[in-house]
């Protein structure tokens, strides 16, 4: 039989092209190609109760003028379950009488290990960008032009009391900001214990 190739018109090629495109599209999408990005918000086919009319964390408020859904507490109110660190940066002298000594139990081996492992974890999460993993400064942020912090293992820091170190973590010192809102109170004490443990190693160049 003779092949009839002449009667294939423009429509045939268009249909074939569309079919190939669709097939390729479906195969690519089904293969989970994660490099396809979209700036448009995901489509909601049935928006049943996905977006409920309530205040959610960090969502813009349409009720208040400043647009904050999280409100500041009314002046002179006291929180029932949380406690903000009361002192400011320069008041480190008051810290000794206010916060006292480390309340965590470091006497037995198991609790000491536990406190130190927690302190190590918190130290690495919050302090290493500047103080580095060994506590001697020159962290990754310092390499980008930030002020180099004091060596945590030298005699100056060693001479400071536990309460003073706790105060510095909570309220900050010099250019360092306080981390009282980020690190829980007991975790700050764990960091102090971990710094003390590092100081036993002495300064190493």
């Amino acid at each position, binding site marked *: 039989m003779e092949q009839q190739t002449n009667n294939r018109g423009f429509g045939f090629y268009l249909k074939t092209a569309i079919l190939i495109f669709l097939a390729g599209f*479906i195969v690519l*999408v*089904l293969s*989970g190609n*994660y*490099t*396809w*990005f*979209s*700036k448009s*918000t*995901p489509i909601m*086919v049935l928006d049943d*109760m*996905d977006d*409920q009319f*309530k205040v*959610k*964390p*960090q969502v*813009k408020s349409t009720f208040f003028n400043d647009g*904050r859904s999280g409100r500041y507490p009314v002046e002179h109110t006291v929180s029932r379950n949380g406690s903000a660190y009361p002192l400011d940066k320069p008041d480190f002298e008051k810290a000794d009488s206010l916060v006292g000594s480390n309340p*965590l*139990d470091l006497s037995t081996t*198991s609790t000491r*290990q*536990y*406190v*130190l*492992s*927690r302190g*190590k*974890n*918190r130290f*690495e*999460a*919050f302090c*290493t*960008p500047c103080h580095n*993993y*060994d506590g001697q400064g020159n962290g*990754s*942020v310092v*390499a*980008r*032009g*930030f*002020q180099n912090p004091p060596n945590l293992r030298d005699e100056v820091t060693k001479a400071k009391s536990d309460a003073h170190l706790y105060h510095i973590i909570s309220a900050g010192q010099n*250019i*360092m*900001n306080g981390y009282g809102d*980020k*690190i*829980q109170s*007991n*975790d700050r004490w*764990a960091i102090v214990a*971990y710094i003390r*443990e590092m100081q036993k*190693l002495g300064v190493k160049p």
Partner: protein
Amino acid sequence: MFTKELDKKLKRAFTMGGGTVVVLALVLIFGQNNKVTDVGYRPDQPIPFSHKLHANEDTISHNGVKMKGLGIKCMYCHAQAEVSAHSPVPTTSTCMNCHVLPMKLENERGNPGPLELIRTSYEKNKPIEWVRIHKLPDYAHFNHSRHIRAQLDCKSCHGPVETMGVISQYKPLSMGWCLDCHRNPEQFAVPARPISGIYAYDYENRSQIDKFIGVRANSYDASATIKLAAMKPVVQPSYGMVETADLPKPVVEGMLVPKHAQYGPENCSSCHH
């Protein structure tokens, strides 16, 4: 037998039927498949923040320049994820912990660039309006702290954020996808990595802490899987809280205790309460 009229009607019927089938198939494929729902949502943020630059600790390429990543842990900015259900986008004051001073790159190019926006936001006490990407329906109650205390890495749900120059959704966050991992955590979940700063206290090796004082923790084994504490079935009441067996008792009063990884609950009211 076929009149011209009937022929026309049949043709139309077949076209419409075929069209309906195709549309249905597309809806089923795109609507039901885990891999394609919401994945790849990458909106423009008010500030072109790069997780790759901030979170990666290896050498990266940022705007075409090779440099070393900062290696800041996820927990530094998203600290409250450990204690709260919602993992907040960091406040401007978190950015200002470091960006209060001009960085080397700013000095090199001679202007603060997008960092100007952070500093004005801080001065005017006006929050930056980041665009939310990862969103569950309001009737699904996801709790970050619970998953982090089970030592699941952020990567399990958010993908390799430390490689993303612009943040995007990596996993579908659909119910089927949640349940996949709840049923087979050892297959899907990523155990906590040092890069996340998630507290994963190894109860078996308590003596290790002495060896690693002042030394960088980098003992993450990429081939590690989630260790399930006990292979016994978890006691599951029909609704309410799941009673788990063999949880470690708090060693120090008032301090956070990581939980042993367990199977995730499968009852409806665990998430839809």
